[in-house]
Structures are given as structure tokens and as C-alpha cells.
């Protein structure tokens, strides 16, 4: 359907309420299949069974970045196309993206423990994800400190855009910083070529997580619309009783 009529909050609410259960069900289905595939995947010759953590770690990283991509597109929606739902989607995406980035960091740390003997190594990829996580917290902080939603939306949108521009630079500079100092991290995360027997379960897990992300985003956006509605009705309540 055209994006235009999605712009009307009530129609979006009705659509969301209908699709969320189906999407949730599909997510569960794909997850069941993915978990099964992941568990039956062979151990990696080098990392042993801990490769199974990769099935959580890598999708977490992808969703972390996907979340920021969603926020960037929503930011353009807010600032350029003036789409009424854009800022609501951006506000909904921030905590979800942050949560998956956190999952990526935690699983990465648990994956590194048996390899390097420490919970955290300033490996290039892990460090970039940490900076991304801090950027997410910054955007959430903007939403939580600016009271007026439209002002908060514009501020968060600009931060998302600037973040989107800065992330590749951060990625590059962290890589350079890491290789420059070439400290103790002797082991590169997830070797260059991944054996198909591991790649397929990984892709299915990634699909399952992406569906989960979509369901959560839809539900969180619906919540934000309802929150806006509560706010509008409270304003109405104040003015009516003036």
C-alpha cells in the first residue's frame, strides 16, 4: 500500500494491531528452525563449540547497525519529508537497537573469554560496537531529557544523521587504532572465510533476529503513537478545563 496512507496514525495503529500477532508467530517459527540449525551445526575446527555464540553475536551486531539505519532513514523522514510517523519510528528504534548492540557486546565478551582469557579485549570490531552503543545511549538521553516531543524528535534526528556519517569514520579510525598498537589481540573475530555448514545457520539466525526486530519495532512504534495520543488528550483536558 502507498506509504502515504500509512501516514495516518489511526490507520497505522489498526494495521499494526493486525500484523503484530502474525509477525510474532512467524518470528517464533523461524527462531525454532534457526535454533535447531544452530545447535546441529558442527564445531568449528579452531574455536570449538564456542562458535555457537557467534550465532548470537553476529546478528546482534547487524541489528545494532540496522537499528541505526532505521533511525537515519526516520531522521530523513522527520527533517526532509516531514513524514508524521518518522519521529515515532525513530524514538521506537533507539532502545531496540541499543538492546541488540548490548547483546552483541555481552555475547562478544563471553565468546572472547575462552579465547583470550579476559572478558574484554579492545578488538577493532568489538570497540566499534561499544562506541555505537554509547551513541545509542546518547540518542536515548536526548529523548529522555527534552520534554517537547517535536523538539526532541528534531534533535534526535540530527544526532542520528551525524552519527550515521560518523560511524564509518569511527570504524576506520578504530581499526587503524587497533592495528597501529597491535597489542594483545592475536585472534581476529570470526575468521575471513566462514564454512558453509556454519554460514547457513548463521543466516537463518540473522533472519529470525531481523523478524524479531521488525516485530518489536512495530509494537514499540504503536506504543509511541498511543503515548502521543495520551499527551494530546491531556493537553485537550487542560485546555477544556481552563
Amino acid at each position: 500500500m502507498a506509504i502515504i496512507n500509512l501516514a495516518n496514525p489511526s490507520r497505522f495503529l489498526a494495521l499494526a494491531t493486525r500484523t503484530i500477532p502474525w509477525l510474532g508467530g512467524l518470528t517464533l517459527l523461524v527462531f525454532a528452525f534457526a535454533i535447531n540449525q544452530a545447535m546441529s551445526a558442527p564445531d568449528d575446527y579452531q574455536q570449538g563449540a564456542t562458535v555457537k555464540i557467534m550465532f548470537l553475536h553476529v546478528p546482534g551486531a547487524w541489528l545494532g547497525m540496522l537499528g541505526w539505519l532505521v533511525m537515519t532513514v526516520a531522521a530523513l523522514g522527520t527533517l526532509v519529508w516531514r513524514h508524521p510517523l518518522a519521529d515515532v519510528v525513530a524514538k521506537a528504534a533507539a532502545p531496540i537497537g541499543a538492546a541488540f548492540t548490548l547483546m552483541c557486546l555481552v555475547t562478544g565478551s563471553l565468546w572472547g573469554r575462552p579465547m583470550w582469557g579476559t572478558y574484554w579485549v579492545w578488538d577493532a570490531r568489538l570497540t566499534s560496537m561499544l562506541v555505537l552503543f554509547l551513541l545509542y545511549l546518547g540518542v536515548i538521553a536526548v529523548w529522555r531529557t527534552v520534554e517537547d516531543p517535536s523538539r526532541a524528535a528534531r534533535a534526535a534526528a540530527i544526532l542520528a544523521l551525524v552519527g550515521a556519517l560518523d560511524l564509518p569514520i569511527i570504524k576506520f579510525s578504530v581499526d587503524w587504532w587497533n592495528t597501529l598498537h597491535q597489542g594483545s589481540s592475536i585472534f581476529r573475530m570470526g575468521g575471513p572465510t566462514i564454512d558453509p555448514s556454519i554460514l547457513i545457520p548463521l543466516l537463518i539466525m540473522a533472519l529470525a533476529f531481523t523478524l524479531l526486530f521488525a516485530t518489536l519495532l512495530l509494537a514499540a512504534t504503536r506504543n509511541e503513537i498511543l503515548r502521543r495520543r495520551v499527551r494530546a488528550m491531556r493537553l485537550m483536558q487542560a485546555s477544556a478545563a481552563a
Partner: protein
Amino acid sequence: MLAANHLGYIVAAYVAAVVVVGALVGWVTLDYRILRRTLADLERRGFSRRSGSSAAAHAGPALKKAREDA
């Protein structure tokens, strides 16, 4: 780094993932339920109890408009 089977860490990782996903799902559903209740309460109460139906009536159409463009 031997290819030992670090079951503990794998379980910990999956527990962490379940915790994060569980928190997200819990937060979204709880938030939805609270918002539904607040909305129902606001609608049922109309606006200020003291001003009775008149304010609610005159605010009725405004209320519908608020629902549209919120």
C-alpha cells in the same frame, strides 16, 4: 586456545540473549498495556469531572480530532 567445549560460556551467552530479548518483549507489552489503560481512563473520565457532560460534549469533537492527528 584448544578447541575445548566451553559449555558454560555458550549457555551464558544464550542466557544473556534471552534476557535481553525478554526484557525488550516485556517492556513493549507492559508499556502497551499501561498506555491502553491510561487512554481508556482518559476517555472514560472525559475531562474534568466537575464540569460534567457539557465540557465533555463540547470537547467530544475536539477529542475525536485529537485522536486523528495525534
